């Protein structure tokens, strides 16, 4: 098969970091080529170099027989490279159609609203991706935004497609759809570079896999001739345990009781009368497609959103209208779904982020004064215990990779020894090693007799960790099922609103 893209000896450094170190990559016509690597291995950087967003320090790139010398994405787009970025490159204030045609608008001066909407409708139909062209992108769920990203690329009719972690935020159904699209493209001879941390996906659809570690390409292998375990080991450089072991355990008294809770944002009711309990020593998983009220529900429990109706009891006390601070104090820990937006002050130093929840309390503060030494000691201790890299408590949170940012939040929340930990999407975008670390922490809490409320869009995660699973659809709890026995299909149906037959 003909080589389509050839990357040779690419080196790219950032101040203090060698993100790509003589990287080589070879993509053939009509193949799906997966790239695997830990967080921070340099995958996105390499893709951005190919796409012309970063200028490499050295090395060369060829697309078919053409030597590429990009200085901006404009040329990459012209050469026929399309890229879906890991962090969405969308403009929330604009509509779907505007986002899609941006940069390649038909017509000269006038923006042709009607025609563009029509174009997007056609495109969506062609790839079986349902979307409202007139919706504001900022109002869409993450999954729908992902669709817009992909449609953007299709609109440009790319010769080579780069997908940087496109499935990280999709529901299983959406992942299925995406995989079908990818296969269709492959059959049309369009090569795809596909980055993912999910080994099963990689195993399922890719033809070859290139593994990166610490900025270098370790190896490229035929997918057929390898196993997820081998890939994981190659990636991390040591033996990895892929499956979590969850010892059986009997749950205790209820820690959190939610009764007929109604939450509305703006004029819409997002949570419409939900009741459930979380008990000591259990992980309660909340499954659902993004946008069905699960995040509003937990924000109401943590006090970030007001409740319109209903009751929340914690350890027997009514906290329905308590402040965030009060809930924190009595023992609720929370890992928010968007770590950068809610969980961290990106321009604070790590040590300041480590005490974000307890900064006002002894030993971190006395009579309103911050105490430097205890804060630094605490930050150092947590950095070590949770293996936050780099081990610099004075670094800004902004300069950490996503996985390490997540560890900071986890460390902070777990160290507070909460009676209830609410974890929203705690492993989003993390590599297998980091995921494993976080899963083990959640299980440790469970073993200590704490309660965990886990919200995740990822069914695997919910199914492997939860003792009980609540399925939420359109703001209502469809069912609460025992974790061990439920199947993917059952969950999938409930998530889309299909009631299961009542048994017994």
């Amino acid at each position, binding site marked *: 098969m003909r080589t389509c893209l050839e990357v040779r000896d690419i080196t790219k450094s950032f101040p203090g970091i060698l993100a790509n170190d003589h990287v080589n990559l070879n993509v053939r016509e009509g193949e799906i080529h997966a790239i695997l690597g830990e967080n921070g291995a340099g995958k996105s950087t390499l893709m951005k170099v190919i796409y012309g967003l970063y200028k490499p320090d050295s090395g060369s790139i060829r697309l078919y027989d053409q030597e590429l010398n990009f200085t901006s994405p404009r040329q990459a787009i012209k050469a026929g490279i399309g890229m879906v970025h890991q962090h969405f490159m969308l403009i929330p204030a604009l509509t779907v159609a505007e986002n899609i045609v941006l940069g390649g608008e038909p017509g000269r001066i006038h923006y042709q609203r009607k025609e563009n909407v029509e174009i997007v409708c056609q495109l969506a139909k062609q790839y079986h991706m349902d979307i409202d062209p007139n919706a504001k992108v900022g109002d869409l769920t993450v999954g729908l935004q992902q669709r817009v990203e992909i449609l953007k690329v299709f609109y440009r009719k790319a010769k080579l497609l780069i997908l940087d972690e496109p499935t990280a935020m999709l529901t299983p159904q959406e992942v299925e759809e995406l995989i079908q699209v990818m296969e269709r493209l492959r059959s049309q001879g369009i090569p795809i570079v596909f980055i993912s941390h999910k080994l099963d996906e990689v195993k399922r659809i890719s033809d070859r896999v290139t593994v990166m570690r610490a900025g270098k390409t370790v190896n490229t292998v035929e997918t057929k001739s390898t196993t997820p375990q081998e890939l994981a080991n190659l990636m991390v450089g040591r033996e990895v345990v892929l499956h979590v072991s969850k010892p059986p355990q009997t749950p205790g008294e209820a820690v959190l009781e939610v009764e007929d809770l109604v939450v509305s944002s703006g004029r819409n009711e997002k949570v419409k009368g939900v009741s459930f309990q979380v008990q000591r020593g259990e992980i309660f998983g909340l499954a659902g497609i993004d946008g069905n009220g699960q995040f509003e529900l937990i924000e109401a429990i943590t006090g*970030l959103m007001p409740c319109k109706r209903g009751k929340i009891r914690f350890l027997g006390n009514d906290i329905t209208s308590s402040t965030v601070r009060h809930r924190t104090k009595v023992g609720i820990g929370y890992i928010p779904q968007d770590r950068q937006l809610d969980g961290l*002050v990106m321009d*604070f130093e790590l040590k*300041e982020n480590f005490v*974000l929840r307890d900064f006002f309390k002894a030993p971190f503060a006395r009579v309103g*004064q911050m105490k430097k030494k205890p804060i630094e000691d605490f930050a150092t201790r947590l950095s070590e215990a949770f293996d936050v890299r780099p081990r610099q408590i004075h670094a800004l949170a902004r300069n950490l990779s996503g996985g390490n940012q997540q560890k900071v939040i986890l460390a902070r929340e777990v160290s507070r020894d909460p009676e209830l930990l609410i974890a929203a999407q705690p492993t989003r975008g993390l590599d297998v090693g980091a995921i494993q670390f976080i899963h083990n922490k959640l299980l440790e809490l469970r073993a200590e007799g704490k309660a965990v409320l886990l919200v995740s869009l990822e069914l695997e995660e919910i199914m492997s960790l939860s003792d009980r699973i609540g399925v939420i659809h359109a703001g209502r709890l469809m069912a609460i099922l025992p974790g061990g026995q439920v199947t993917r299909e059952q969950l999938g149906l409930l998530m889309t609103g299909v009631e299961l037959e009542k048994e017994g």
Partner: protein
Amino acid sequence: MQKTIEGLVTPFVAIVIAVMIGAGVMLGTGHNPLTAYGALFSGAFGSTVNLSNTIANAIPLILSGLGVAIAFKAGLFNIGAEGQYWIGSMAAVWIGYSVKGLSPILHISLSILVAMLAAGLWAGIIPGLAKAFVGAHEVITTMMMSYIAIFLSHYMLENGPMMQQGFTPQSPVILPSATLGKIVERTQLSWGLAIAVVACIIVYWLLYKTTLGYRLRAVGLNSRAANYAGINVPFHLVLALFISGMLAGLAGAVQMLGVQHRLYDSFSSGYGFTAIVVALLANNNPFGVILASIFFAALSTGGQSMQLVSGVPAHLTDVISGIIIFLVATKDIVQMVQKRWRKRQTLASDKEA
């Protein structure tokens, strides 16, 4: 330490470049740049008197600059320091002349306290509450309140409640017990300097060593995360504007008690806008505010001496300050110069090897 030195290199190079551009303009308009700059420098720093006056002019800038900086730290652009300055001035003068029979310490403290409170409320109540509860943009509200404050001062003086009996629209002179003493006689340098320095230290301490500062900065950098941390965001927005206003009010009070001793009917002190530049140039660092204020004060006092000695119109100093601000903000220009220099160095060392 290294950081501090690096922080100083940029403004220094910027000043050098701006001064050269200014020299070009002077040559072009037939003035001798050497005489002019000599006069500028000696007018600002050349004698005890000049130095004292320069520092004296820096004091209100330091204080209102601190006010702007603290608001910036909480994510708020207080463009109305000018008006808060006037409110503080009015309050300080009013207490200064109308309350009788107090000891100096008490009288001065009372004047300053009332001034800070009044200016703090001026910024905190309308702009603060409107921001916190309606989301009204503080740039608009503080600016509008600033104009209102200035008209209020006109009202007070032009046949108003604070006008001194007699001819001119000015307030009575404050009592000796409310007057801040001079550090250097025959200059305008008063013990207000000590107040300004203490204020810097307090603001630094407040911002970086207290939980209040932590909360303000968290709100400024990421209000959602602050909310998540259990911080009452609306309250801290109001508080930030209140403190910011208090500092601008303190600037007015110190100026009245230390230098002017009474309120005059004037258009604008000009401190409000300069304070914004001061705060930004200092990157909102309280000690940087001192340096930036002295710099602007020196340009202003030195500029007039330059006009006197060399005949270069004082407006030209505005041109030069504008260019300096331009360049100081443009860190990359300086870095470009540095890079080129470094490249030459590495080339040289490569040759050696």
